[in-house]
């Protein structure tokens, strides 16, 4: 089917978020929709999937104008959306989720046999035939949950799939599975709108790319005839000088030394050291134990063994408070559930870690606090109207800067980063890289877990590769081909 959205206008109150946006998608193509956070991508897709009603413009399918007033309307037209945050009910089984709201039944009694057979059929269509339909959905990895969502969309007869940042939580291996399925769907005539911040993926999998900026449509290109620089220029309206800013920091003495770190069932025998001013990247598949290293170092997990030395002094970290007292900071993977208190203001979040330093006898000195927050917001370039705005109103990139602010109020000796740029747009990423570089220059030792290989390769001095809870090796970032890192992360372990 061919989709044409013409002159789409949408306002929220006085704020116009889409200004006469055009978007066209042909059946059997994968069409990237890119733009910085706040450019209007999500709003446009929410209009297409029936979550928002358009204020002006028209939507045509195969030349016929259509009206989409609800998700149900969109589904009836064969449009389905796979959300970034998956919509599974984790306690229900895979098949219960697949057929939620339209369970095959006899007079209200669920026909479990038919349901299971149908579920298995749709799952195998997306190459996920190995998933047991009776499995509890929440126990599946994010990658597999996503495949279930795609199977559900197909079972709803979707001819147009909207995928919003589908690879954000996937490992390289899961991503290639996903791409294979997308290619297969494309061959079967399904049109896919692919919303992503990851340029590499767009050039790998998409046919065309449309760019939005500040609610305007700024251009459409055939992927084969454009390049990274042109797309980024369209997105940000200026040339982005460096995608990964260089760091010229002499590496200092050893700050963090980790010996034989283990967390039974998760990680075993981890050894590494990080120097002052150094970034140690941690690569590997999801579930390989990358985050476990950080959680163990920060005292989040219990029952761990091994030796950790900071500036040659042994540490005993049993709780996060101990880690913080020792000078360790932790930018967690999931900023919404672990990094921020969403209902509190930028100010209240930014000072949460070091609040005692802004207080006397337990009473907060409000001027001191406000001044410190102002300085942090300026230093980190947090784009917010003021410090009193609720942090949940900020874009992903700005939220992430607030998480950094929490730890920078008092510069940490060691900073642990878990997916520091997830869900952050290109411009915001570059700003976060600058922050990382400045911290390194100030002598902080940084351990950075990331699923984005280009990011790990460019930002790290050395890369620790994890594989099935064990250390597969530490490689210098310079001169090691990415393939070698991938191979180390995925090769079967030698019998030990």
């Amino acid at each position: 089917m061919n989709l044409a959205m013409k002159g789409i206008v949408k306002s929220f109150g006085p704020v116009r978020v889409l200004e006469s946006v055009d978007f066209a998608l042909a059946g059997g193509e994968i069409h990237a929709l890119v733009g910085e956070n706040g450019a209007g991508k999500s709003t446009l897709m929410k209009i297409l999937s029936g979550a928002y009603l358009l204020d002006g413009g028209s939507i045509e399918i195969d030349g016929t104008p259509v009206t989409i007033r609800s998700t149900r309307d969109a589904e009836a037209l064969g449009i389905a959306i796979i959300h970034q945050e998956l919509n599974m009910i984790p306690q229900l089984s895979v098949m219960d989720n697949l057929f939620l709201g339209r369970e095959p039944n006899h007079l209200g009694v669920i026909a479990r046999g038919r349901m299971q057979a149908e579920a298995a059929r749709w799952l195998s269509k997306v190459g996920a035939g190995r998933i047991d339909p009776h499995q509890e959905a929440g126990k599946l990895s994010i990658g597999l949950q996503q495949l279930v969502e795609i199977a559900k969309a197909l079972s709803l007869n979707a001819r147009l799939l909207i995928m919003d940042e589908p690879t954000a939580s996937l490992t390289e291996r899961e991503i290639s599975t996903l791409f294979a399925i997308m290619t297969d769907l494309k061959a079967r005539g399904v049109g896919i709108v692919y919303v992503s911040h990851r340029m590499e993926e767009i050039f790998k999998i998409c046919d065309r790319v449309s760019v939005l900026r500040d609610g305007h449509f700024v251009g459409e290109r055939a992927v084969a005839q454009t390049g990274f620089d042109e797309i980024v220029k369209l997105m940000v309206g200026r040339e982005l000088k460096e995608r990964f800013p260089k760091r010229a920091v002499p590496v200092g003495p050893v700050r963090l030394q980790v010996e034989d770190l283990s967390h039974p069932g998760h990680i075993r025998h981890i050894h590494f050291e990080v120097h002052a001013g150094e970034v140690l990247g941690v690569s590997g598949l999801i579930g390989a134990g990358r985050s476990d290293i950080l959680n163990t170092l920060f005292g989040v997990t219990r029952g761990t063994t091994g030796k950790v030395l900071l500036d040659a002094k042994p540490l005993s970290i049993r709780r996060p408070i101990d880690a913080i007292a020792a000078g360790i900071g932790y930018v967690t993977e999931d900023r919404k559930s672990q990094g921020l208190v969403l209902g509190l203001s930028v100010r209240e979040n930014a000072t949460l870690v070091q609040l005692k330093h802004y207080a006397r006898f337990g009473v907060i000195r409000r001027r001191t606090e406000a001044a410190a927050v102002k300085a942090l917001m300026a230093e980190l370039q947090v784009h917010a109207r003021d410090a009193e705005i609720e942090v949940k109103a900020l874009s992903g990139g700005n939220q992430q800067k607030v998480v950094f602010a929490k730890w920078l109020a008092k510069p940490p000796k060691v900073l642990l980063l878990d997916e520091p740029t997830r869900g952050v747009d290109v411009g915001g990423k570059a700003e976060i890289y600058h922050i990382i570089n400045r911290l390194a220059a100030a002598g902080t030792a940084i351990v950075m877990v990331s699923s984005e290989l280009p990011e790990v390769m460019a930002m790290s001095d050395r890369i620790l590769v994890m594989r099935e809870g064990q250390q597969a090796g530490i490689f210098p970032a310079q001169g090691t081909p990415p393939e070698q890192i991938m191979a180390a992360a995925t090769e079967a372990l030698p019998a030990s």
Partner: protein
Amino acid sequence: MTAQQKATLQKYGPLLALVVVCVGLSIMSPSFLTLSNSFDVMRQVSINAVIAFGMTLSILLGGIDLSVGSILAVSSVLAAMTMKSGHDAGLAAGIALLAGAAMGSLNGLVIAKGNVAPFIATLGTMTLLRGLALVLSNGSPISDFSSNFFAMLGGGYVARLIPVPVVVMLVMFAAFWFVLTRTVFGRHVYATGGNAEAATLSGVNTARVQILVYTLCGAMAALAGVILTSRLDSAQPTAGAGYELDAITAVVLGGTSLAGGRGWIFGTLVGALLIGVLNNGLNLMGMSAFYQQVVKGAVILLAVLLDRGGKT
């Protein structure tokens, strides 16, 4: 209307409702808006308000404290027993407050260290402590303390005009306001209630925050118990039953979210006053007690529905 105006309206909605009800009642009943009746209402409100201040903290944490009525009874009985055994009223009040704090910290320990849901934990202590009050008092009221000082706590006046319980309520209001808005502890309450995991990872000792909050909750219930005992010149082991629901009503009417992390103490004061004013006004209008319940319930539902309606 912008989102901000809407938020402001929502925040001050309970206050607006209170003003509207007061204006309405003073038109309908000339005896409503007299100085003596105003202080009367506030004195009636004070016990619930004091409990509700503590309750606000537990609800800000995303928890609840169902045991406040029972804590009130135990504290009240303990104070009475102390006086009956010949000790002075100050000591009695002190023992009551300490006992309230101790019972509250028991709640906090079970919740924070035992990882028990606050609803269940305090449901348990509610029953347990009610039993304790009955055991201690042998099931019968303890009365006649013949202590002028003690009688003053519930029945006295400051400057011959303002009832002592009203002063206590206002002082406690100011103290809780200060603690919640100006102190590290207050900030930690909001952070823990808003997102306990993020708070822990930011170095907030969430277990300590919880224990302290329930301790305060218990102490406030005991304070209410002292006032009540003084007013009645009698300690009843069955006193305070159902008070937890009045306190929760005041907190929720005041706009504090049961989900935790959002709310303020001023709202609770307004919520408690709103309930008190309704009680008083309906009495003055001579409405039957049965209808009063119907009206009060309807007002609560209406207030909460209005609050929900503003959320997106």
